[in-house]
C-alpha cells in the first residue's frame, strides 16, 4: 500500500466507467491517422542523405516558392489585421441595417470549399473578369501574377482576425473609454491608448491563425496564381509536382521545411504576444 502511494500517480481515481476503452480507442485512432503518417514526413526527407535534403530545400525554385508562400501569407495577414479590426469594430459598435447578415457572412471563407473560391477569384480577376476588367486599363494585373496569390490568401484569412477580435471588443469596459472621453481624450487618442492595447493580444492570435492557414493554402491559390516557376509558384504546389515525378524524398523535404518554418514563425509570434501581455499588465 505504502509502495503504490509513493509511485507517481498516472491517473486520478474515478468512479466513472470507460477510461481504458476510451484511452485505447483514442490513442489507436490518433496513432493510425495522425502519428504514423507524420512520422513518415519526419523520417523520409533524409533517405538520400543530409546533403541531398539540403540541396533540395536550397534549390532556387524551392526557395522562391517558400519565399512566396511565407511572404504573401505575411502580407495578406497584415492586410487582414487592419481590415479585420475595422470590420470587427463596425460589427460590435454600430447598429446598422444588415449587421446580422454581415456578421454571418464573415464565416463564409471557413465553409466555402477552396476550389470554389479559387475558380471564382480567378474568374473575377482575369483580364476579362468583373474586377480584372476594371484594373486592366490601370495597368494592374492580378490574375496569374504573385498579386493573385496575395488576393487569394487575403480572402482565405479574413475571418480569423474578425473572429479573434470581436469577443474582446464586445467585453471592453465602457467605463474606461468614457473616463478617457471625460478627460478630454480625442477619438484617435482613445483608440490608441484604450482600445488598441486591449485588443492587441487578440489581434496577434488572429494574425497567427490567418498566417498559419495562408502558408499552407493550396486550392484557392492555384487557379489564380498562374503557377510560373520562380515567380508565382507556391510551396504546396511544388510538393504536388515532386510527387508526380515520384520524388518522395524531395516532396517530404519541402513539406518538412514548410512545417518547421511555420512552427518557427508561430513561435516568434507567440513570444511577441507574451511580451505584449506582460507589458499590458
Amino acid at each position: 500500500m505504502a509502495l503504490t502511494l509513493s509511485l507517481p500517480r498516472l491517473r486520478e481515481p474515478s468512479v466513472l466507467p470507460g477510461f481504458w476503452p476510451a484511452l485505447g480507442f483514442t490513442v489507436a485512432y490518433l496513432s493510425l491517422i495522425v502519428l504514423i503518417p507524420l512520422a513518415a514526413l519526419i523520417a523520409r526527407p533524409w533517405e538520400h542523405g543530409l546533403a541531398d535534403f539540403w540541396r533540395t530545400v536550397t534549390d532556387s525554385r524551392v526557395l522562391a516558392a517558400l519565399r512566396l508562400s511565407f511572404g504573401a501569407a505575411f502580407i495578406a495577414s497584415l492586410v487582414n489585421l487592419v481590415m479585420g479590426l475595422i470590420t470587427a469594430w463596425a460589427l460590435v459598435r454600430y447598429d446598422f441595417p444588415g449587421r446580422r447578415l454581415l456578421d454571418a457572412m464573415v464565416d463564409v471563407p471557413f465553409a466555402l470549399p477552396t476550389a470554389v473560391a479559387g475558380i471564382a477569384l480567378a474568374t473575377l480577376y482575369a483580364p476579362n473578369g468583373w474586377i480584372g476588367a476594371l484594373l486592366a486599363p490601370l495597368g494592374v494585373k492580378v490574375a496569374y501574377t504573385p498579386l493573385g496569390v496575395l488576393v487569394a490568401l487575403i480572402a482565405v484569412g479574413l475571418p480569423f482576425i474578425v473572429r479573434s477580435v470581436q469577443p474582446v471588443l464586445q467585453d471592453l469596459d465602457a467605463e474606461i473609454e468614457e473616463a478617457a472621453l471625460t478627460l478630454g481624450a480625442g477619438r484617435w487618442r482613445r483608440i490608441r491608448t484604450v482600445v488598441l492595447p486591449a485588443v492587441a493580444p487578440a489581434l496577434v492570435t488572429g494574425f497567427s491563425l490567418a498566417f498559419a492557414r495562408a502558408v499552407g493554402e493550396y486550392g484557392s491559390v492555384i487557379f489564380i496564381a498562374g503557377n510560373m516557376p520562380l515567380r508565382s509558384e507556391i510551396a504546396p504546389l511544388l510538393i504536388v509536382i515532386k510527387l508526380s515525378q515520384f520524388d518522395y524524398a524531395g516532396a517530404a523535404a519541402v513539406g518538412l521545411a514548410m512545417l518547421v518554418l511555420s512552427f518557427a514563425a508561430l513561435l516568434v509570434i507567440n513570444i511577441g504576444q507574451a511580451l505584449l501581455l506582460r507589458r499590458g499588465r
Partner: protein
Amino acid sequence: MRTMVPEKPKGFAWLVVGAAALWMGLAILLPLVSVFVEAFRQGAAAYFASFQDPDAQAAIKLTLQVALVAVPLNALFGLAAAWLIAKFEFAGKGLLLTLIDLPFSLSPVISGLVWVLVFGANGWFGPLLDQLGVRIIFTYTGILLATILVTFPFVARELIPLMQAQGTDEETAAVTLGAGGRDIVWRVTLPNIAWALVYGVLLCNARAMGEFGAVSVVSGHIRGLTDTMPLHVEALYNDYNFVAAFAVASLLAGLALVTLAVKTLLEWRFSSELASGARR
C-alpha cells in the same frame, strides 16, 4: 463592468461601417455571387444539363460516400476523446490535446502527402501492399484516409471544452444511483452534448465534402472513378468548361451556405449548449 451597447452610426462611424461593408462585399460576397452567375451564364437548361454528365454524377456519389464514412468515424473519435479528456484526470492530457489539434496546422497538401509516403508505390508499405494486391493511393481508401486526417479535430474540438465545462457531477450521480455505462452515456451524457455534437458533425461534414488539396494528392484524378466534387470542378475548369465547372461548384457553395445557416441557427437557438457559445 458594463460593456458598450451598439449605437446608431453617424458621421465618422458611417465611414467605418462603409469600409467594413465594402471589404466584405469585395472579398466574400462578390466571389460567392459570381459562382452562381457563372453557373447560369448560358441559362438554366445548360446549368441542369451539367448534372446529366455521368462523371459529374460519379463525383457527387464519391463525395457522399467519403463523407458518409469519414464523418461518423471522426465523430466516434471525438466522443471517445472528449469522454477521456473531460471525465478523467491522467498524465499526458496536455500532450494529447496538442496532438488532436495538430492536423489543423498542416497544409492540406501535406495531409495528402503523408499518406503517399506511407502507402504510395515508393511508400513504407507500398511494396508489401503491392504483393498483397491492395491499392490505397489513387483509390477510394486513399481519398478516405486523407479526408479523415483533414477533418480529424472538428468534432473533438467542439465536444472537449463543453464536456470539460459540464464536469462529472451528473455522471457521478448516475453511478451512485446504480446506472451502468450504457445508461450513463445514453441518458446523461449524450442529451447534454447533443447540439454540440450536431454542430461539430455539421462543420466536419462541410470540410469533408469540400476538401481539395489533400484529396488532390492521393486521388490520381481518374474521371468518373476517383474525382470527388471539388476535383471534378478543377478538371472541368481546366477543360475551359466553365458553365459545368461553376454548376458543380454552385452545389458546393450551396452546401457551404446551408451549413452556415444551420450553424448560425444553432448558435442563436442553443448558444448555452454549445462550446462555441461559451467562447463567444
